[in-house]
């Protein structure tokens, strides 16, 4: 695993030296500022508005990074041919892939943590001391992070066999479909025939269910999140990511570079 860690650390260093990442953090802080402003004009529901806006910003910015940088993790290395010298070292292709993935997840963790700190600062500005219910926001942030890890895995998988543009389209498409995976399971409500319903139900189980990771509504109203749900989501993300990354490694292991 030393090789994986070495690649991951370098990927993290690349992201840190990439000014786009800093701009996104800056953007996140701006969003927090906006949240404070909205909080001041929303009498009595400041906490709810700030948490909702903050979590939405964390999620949207995270998805943006996960998709665009996730797709570029492999495709950029192939386009610029930085991969050539590396793969001529005693490094397995799956180690490279896993290292890039871990590096971006590390980056997202730091980025998301920074934005979460910003959210708490905004929350503290309108309401202090903070109450027990406010700390459930951390659970929501953790679940967003799991969702982002899953999106990065999908972005990497697609970038292993298609162009960056198509990989972005596929990743975004799967994300949108995954958000509605739950709805696909309940299609019988609209009166479809049984075969079509079975088809959609099958698809819904194949798609990553991104709504599993959404507890924004609950925490915005200071309601707790069940520990069982957190465990289930954690394992769901781990197993799903492992399967997607294994598929990516299989594809990439036989990929001819330019």
């Amino acid at each position: 695993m030393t090789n994986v860690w070495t690649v991951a650390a370098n990927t993290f260093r690349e992201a840190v030296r990439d000014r786009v990442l800093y701009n996104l953090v800056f953007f996140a802080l701006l969003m927090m500022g906006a949240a404070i402003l909205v909080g001041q004009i929303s009498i009595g529901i400041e906490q709810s508005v700030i948490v909702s806006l903050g979590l939405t910003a964390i999620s949207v910015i995270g998805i943006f990074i996960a998709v665009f940088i996730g797709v570029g993790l492999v495709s950029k290395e192939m386009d610029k041919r930085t991969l050539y010298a590396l793969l001529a070292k005693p490094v397995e292709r799956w180690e490279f892939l896993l290292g890039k993935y871990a590096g971006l997840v590390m980056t997202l963790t730091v980025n998301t943590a920074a934005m979460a700190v910003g959210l708490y600062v905004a929350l503290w500005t309108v309401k202090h001391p903070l109450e027990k219910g406010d700390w459930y926001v951390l659970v929501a942030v953790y679940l967003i992070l799991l969702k982002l890890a899953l999106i990065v895995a999908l972005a990497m998988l697609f970038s292993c066999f298609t162009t960056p543009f198509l990989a972005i389209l596929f990743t975004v498409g799967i994300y949108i479909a995954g958000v509605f995976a739950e709805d696909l399971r309940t299609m019988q409500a609209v009166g479809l025939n049984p075969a079509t319903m079975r088809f959609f139900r099958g698809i819904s189980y194949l798609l990553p269910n991104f709504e599993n990771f959404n507890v924004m509504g609950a925490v915005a109203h200071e309601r707790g999140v069940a520990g069982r749900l957190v465990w289930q989501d954690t394992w769901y993300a781990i197993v799903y990511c492992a399967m997607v990354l294994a598929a990516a490694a299989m594809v990439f292991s036989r990929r001819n570079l330019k």
Partner: protein
Amino acid sequence: MRWLSKNRSMTNPAIEIENLSKEYPYGFLNLKKKRSLENLSMQVETGEVFGFLGPNGAGKSTTIKLLMRLIFPTSGTARILGKSIENVSMHREIGYLPEQPYFYDYLTAAELLEYFARFHGLTAADRRERVQRMLKKVGLETAKKIQLRKYSKGMLQRAGLAQAILHDPQVVVLDEPMAGLDPLGRRELRDIILELKREGRTVLFSTHILSDAEMLCDRVGVIVGGKLRGVGTPGEMVGIQTQGMEILFELDGAGKKFPILEKATKTGERYRLQLPEAELYGALDELKAAGARILSVAQIKPTLEEFFMNLVDADRAQANAVEVSGR
């Protein structure tokens, strides 16, 4: 090509290539296939400097990429130091400089080398020592803290060479290593290649510059149109291809006239006479009788362009013959 010797029988080859072929799909739905390498078989002996020659697009880089497992063969096998190229551990003993190398431009040269050194399991102290030594060796010591995005093409090439030999590999594979280097850089690179040879390492490098091969290589392989046209020493390669002789001479006393002088061209005070090898001694006798001072007698070797164009023309002629006979 008759002038090229067959592969030598080697007891302990560093690189063995057997019937390696590579086809690339292209066109609508990738239904068409383009063959860029055809049944390549050759060996590189341990400790020798082997030049892989050929015009652009001949298949040199394809072969090297296959050896470095950057692309995968359609058929055939290859071994380096007795291990299959599929075996990743083999890469501990290999150094590779890609053609037109491009590295992480947000890193400095020292960081890049430190990063690559980690994959070879070196200790931190060893890494530090080697990185400094390599930077000095390739002349980047003073630029080691500058990000690679600010490097010139030649400097990138030097950084690439440093990462290739950082871990003291037994086999060094260099893809067009002279590209982008200035005359000083080319000379330094030649010195490094010769030093690697003195240390007993095997060097395989590709080039389309004949003079590089002549100066450095124990043997060369010539590839044209994806086919290996032969393997031999540089002497075999240019010797048999001699296009005649050239005599350079000076002549005291203007106005002297004799038959052979009409065939010579005058540049400044010197005359240059080109003639078939069979006429050399007769011409020398005639010049001696006329009181000419012979400055040099040399073989006329084909230019690189002529050298490869002959091969390419022969290749095309053969292809046409096959096509005609097939009708």
